[in-house]
């Protein structure tokens, strides 16, 4: 605090700084205003400026009236997979036991991974109260590394559904009037307070049990059985609170909703609860943005839970074998809207209901039916019919293994021993730890226990025989056709791929600086990266700006590297010249390509000395830049884009570049003229920024002072400030990429006295940053 400092010392420090400044001012400086004016010519004329604004307005009108809205693919994953390695092999040694990490005063109903922590939401129950619904309060809490902070109590008598995105539902019911209402609430990121929105739905029968919602990114989905028209699935905009779609569905008892990149899934047990588990249980697939429901009959089964992530739907299904009515369970996996069954295990599976889906590396679940004495940590409590155990399921084979058992009994996990209070969406994997919420009953009433089970750390040690590839200086980024992040590492002179396991794989470059390897495997080729950009074409070809070699290289989907642009002669003779005639790509003298972007029509845009375009005919054409092509009075010492760090082409073929002269981002009109967005960034001008486009048509700008987006209408929106890696450490973005779900990836690198570590982070639509990789040091 300022005031705590002794006044004298404070003043003396400031005085010394002022003196140093005076001394510095008094040094010999070979600089004056006339020299600068001589170097720079005239300021930009008003006419040019006006023309630019006309173009901007025209562009805005075109965008507003003629361009169809971008396809709505608003949904991220419901259960975020842990990015830290969750190994596929299971340890032979028993793991440490689960630890309880939550005080027994609350009944939380949802747990979600948020950033590096967990968010819990549900009812906060006064511990002495035995009738929770009457006195309960909606609560949400955040758990960071086992420190629980209850940070909000919302309203009396409610239930909360919160599924990982910023807005969530609050449903309230009134015991006296039998009215129930639902609102959208969101948490203010600055204050941490929950802000309730207006009531968006009411039910007169006082029951909120109709309500089952899922928060996608951008919309909330709601199954409502209580409308006068019958049962409907509603999609409600988080922003406006308005109902955007209504989709008639069968009136069923508590369907299970799950959402992934392909849309909404609704599992229906048509004959009632799965405990009876009878015939005819369809799964509906409702494509995002449409009212069409595809029905997939799984037949003879009732749905118990569903977990969707990425493009994969996991569904555990109870089956009933008619003779004797024996209940068995199975796990089904559906990939994409085609709903192909991937595996089906028909044997008796002892699942309780808590399932944590990990898209690529498996499923974690808690079994409840393990016979006493069967687990690695076998206890024998004969009062219980089964011991809860953590089970890992290999997604490809369906094989399961017991990883560890959990404490149980009256003082531990599952007072009921059978884990029956475990429900869907009650687990999360964070930082290698599996967290599971379990409802139980204590002397003072029901409450929730939260357990942490370190599932990854001991396993990681057992599977680290392969030397890991680590980034050194992660630079420009791109998202591959497989959805993985690709990183241009300027110090390694290699392109790396970040695998879902959290490991890195070399895609191109043998790690030696040079030029070689065309026609051979990309990982054996020499590159000279240096802040060099990456881009993928539709067919999966990876383009690499091999800037030190003054070439653009291409890696085919089969891994063969070639040169597609540039003759390797530097400096480029045409640099800064007038626009040039289309030139064969391999004869074109390209100067230090830095950023790349592929247009929807397959043209490759390259930010080099100029902005140039490589067409499918193999000819390079001029797009913008060069000394003499700038507006009058604007052409200067360096070419307009001599240092541009970014070029991005959106879905409509509009080209955006980082304009290093005006501190901003410019759109290039077809004439080569610029429409600058620079001033809209205010003081937070993103100089030398990295840019990319999103599927929604936004241009994402990663600058020193924040993450911005330029919407298709030309509005500049601040997404947030750059993530903080630690005390006093800044984030200086070098690369940025956005995936199909709108998740933004950024990285940072050391700069003396500014930031000392390299890191790769992802930022979700809710502006939540997550650390994917951090350099040691």
């Amino acid at each position: 605090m300022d005031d705590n400092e002794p006044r004298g010392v404070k003043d003396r420090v400031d005085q010394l700084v002022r003196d140093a400044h005076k001394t510095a001012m008094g040094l010999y400086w070979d600089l004056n205003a006339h020299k600068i004016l001589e170097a720079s010519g005239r300021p930009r004329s008003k006419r040019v400026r006006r023309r630019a604004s006309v173009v901007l307005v025209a562009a805005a009108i075109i965008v507003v009236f003629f361009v169809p809205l971008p396809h709505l693919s608003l949904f991220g994953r419901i259960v975020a997979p842990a990015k830290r390695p969750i190994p596929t092999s299971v340890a032979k040694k028993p793991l440490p036991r689960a630890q309880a990490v939550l005080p027994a005063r609350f009944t939380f109903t949802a747990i979600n991974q948020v950033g590096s922590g967990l968010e819990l939401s549900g009812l906060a129950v006064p511990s002495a109260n035995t009738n929770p619904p009457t006195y309960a309060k909606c609560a949400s809490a955040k758990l960071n590394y086992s420190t629980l902070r209850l940070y909000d109590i919302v309203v009396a008598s409610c239930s909360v559904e919160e599924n990982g995105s910023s807005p969530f539902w609050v449903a309230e019911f009134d015991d006296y009037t039998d009215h129930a209402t639902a609102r959208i609430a969101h948490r203010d990121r600055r204050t941490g307070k929950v802000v309730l929105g207006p009531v968006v739905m009411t039910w007169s029968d006082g029951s909120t049990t109709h309500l089952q919602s899922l928060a996608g990114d951008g919309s909330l989905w709601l199954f409502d059985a209580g409308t006068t028209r019958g049962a409907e699935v509603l999609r409600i905009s988080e922003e406006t609170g308005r109902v955007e779609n209504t989709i008639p569905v069968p009136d069923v008892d508590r369907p299970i909703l799950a959402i992934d990149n392909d849309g909404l899934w609704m599992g229906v047990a048509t004959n009632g609860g799965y405990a009876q588990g009878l015939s005819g249980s369809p799964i509906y697939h409702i494509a995002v943005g449409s009212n069409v429901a595809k029905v997939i009959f799984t037949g003879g089964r009732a749905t118990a839970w569903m977990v969707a992530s990425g493009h994969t739907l996991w569904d555990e299904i109870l089956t009933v074998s008619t003779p004797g009515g024996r209940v068995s369970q199975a796990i089904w996996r559906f990939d994409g809207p085609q709903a192909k069954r991937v595996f089906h295990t028909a044997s008796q599976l002892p699942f309780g209901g808590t399932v944590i889906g990990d898209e690529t590396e498996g499923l974690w679940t808690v079994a409840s039916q393990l016979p006493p004495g069967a687990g690695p940590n076998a206890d024998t409590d004969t009062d219980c019919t089964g011991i809860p155990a953590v089970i890992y399921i290999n997604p490809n084979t369906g094989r399961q293994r017991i990883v560890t058992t959990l404490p149980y009994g009256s003082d531990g996990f599952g007072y009921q021993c059978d884990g029956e209070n475990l429900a869907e969406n009650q687990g999360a994997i964070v930082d290698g730890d599996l967290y599971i919420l379990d409802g139980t009953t204590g002397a003072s009433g029901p409450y929730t226990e939260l357990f942490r089970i370190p599932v990854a750390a001991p396993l990681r040690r057992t599977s680290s025989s392969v030397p890991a590839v680590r980034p050194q200086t992660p630079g420009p980024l791109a998202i591959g056709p497989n959805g993985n992040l690709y990183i241009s590492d300027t110090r390694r002179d290699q392109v790396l791929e970040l695998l879902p396991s959290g490991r890195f794989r070399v895609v191109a470059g043998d790690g030696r600086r040079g030029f070689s390897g065309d026609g051979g495997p990309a990982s054996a080729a020499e590159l000279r990266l240096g802040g060099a950009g990456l881009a993928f074409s539709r067919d999966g070809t990876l383009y690499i700006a091999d800037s030190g070699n003054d070439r653009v290289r291409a890696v085919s989907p089969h891994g063969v590297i070639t040169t597609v642009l540039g003759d390797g002669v530097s400096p480029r003779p045409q640099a800064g010249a007038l626009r040039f005639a289309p030139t064969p790509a391999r004869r074109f003298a390209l100067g230090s390509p830095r950023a790349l972007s592929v247009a929807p029509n397959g043209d490759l845009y390259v930010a080099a000395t100029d902005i140039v375009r490589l067409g499918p005919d193999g000819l390079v054409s001029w797009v913008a830049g060069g000394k003499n092509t700038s507006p009058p009075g604007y052409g200067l010492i360096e070419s307009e884009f001599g240092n541009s760090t970014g070029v991005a082409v959106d879905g409509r073929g509009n080209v955006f570049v980082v304009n290093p002269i005006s501190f901003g981002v410019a759109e290039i009109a077809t004439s080569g003229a610029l429409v600058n967005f620079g001033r809209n960034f205010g003081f937070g001008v993103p100089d030398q920024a990295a840019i990319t486009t999103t599927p929604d048509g936004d241009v994402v700008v990663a600058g020193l002072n924040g993450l911005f987006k330029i919407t298709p209408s030309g509005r500049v929106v601040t997404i947030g400030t750059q993530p903080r890696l630690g005390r006093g450490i800044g984030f200086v973005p070098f690369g940025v990429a956005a995936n199909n779900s709108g998740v933004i990836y950024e990285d940072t690198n050391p700069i003396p006295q500014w930031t000392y570590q390299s890191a790769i982070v992802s930022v979700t639509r809710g502006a939540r940053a997550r650390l994917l990789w951090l350099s040691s040091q």
Partner: protein
Amino acid sequence: MADSDPREEFCRLFERTGRSLLGYALLLTGDHQESQDLVQEAFLRAWREWERVSTLDSQQAWLRRVIYNLAVNRWRRLSTRRDHERLVAHEAVSQEADVGQLDVMRALRSLPIRQRQALMLVAIDDLTTAQAAHEMGAKESSVRVWVSRARASMERMLDLDAAPATGTGDHDG
């Protein structure tokens, strides 16, 4: 006044702020030549954007901001080009070459860049923490902390306070 020659206006701005900005850039980077380049480049940009810059409330704040951005860019460019060694050598030399107030400058330069910037804005340019926060694109509370830490570090490095600093050791690096 309103219709005065933009060149004259620009020259006046340079006369008014140029030296102060050179001093600012030198303290920021610790490199005489580099700071001159930075200031030149900042004024160049101001001139190119003169129509806009001339209307700003504080042109000096804009220029400081540009200098700061350019300085960070330079470090960044060097770091991506793997010229760390050169950068380090370069800065070590300039540290010795710069004259006067060496200890203070050295102490300043050892501060993290945001702390250094915050302290300079408050001490030299006499900005309030709120103004400094606005210029730095940061929260006022952060700026206050940066300034406070910067002063404490300077005090420690320059051995200013003869009296022992009791019980306030929150700078445990």
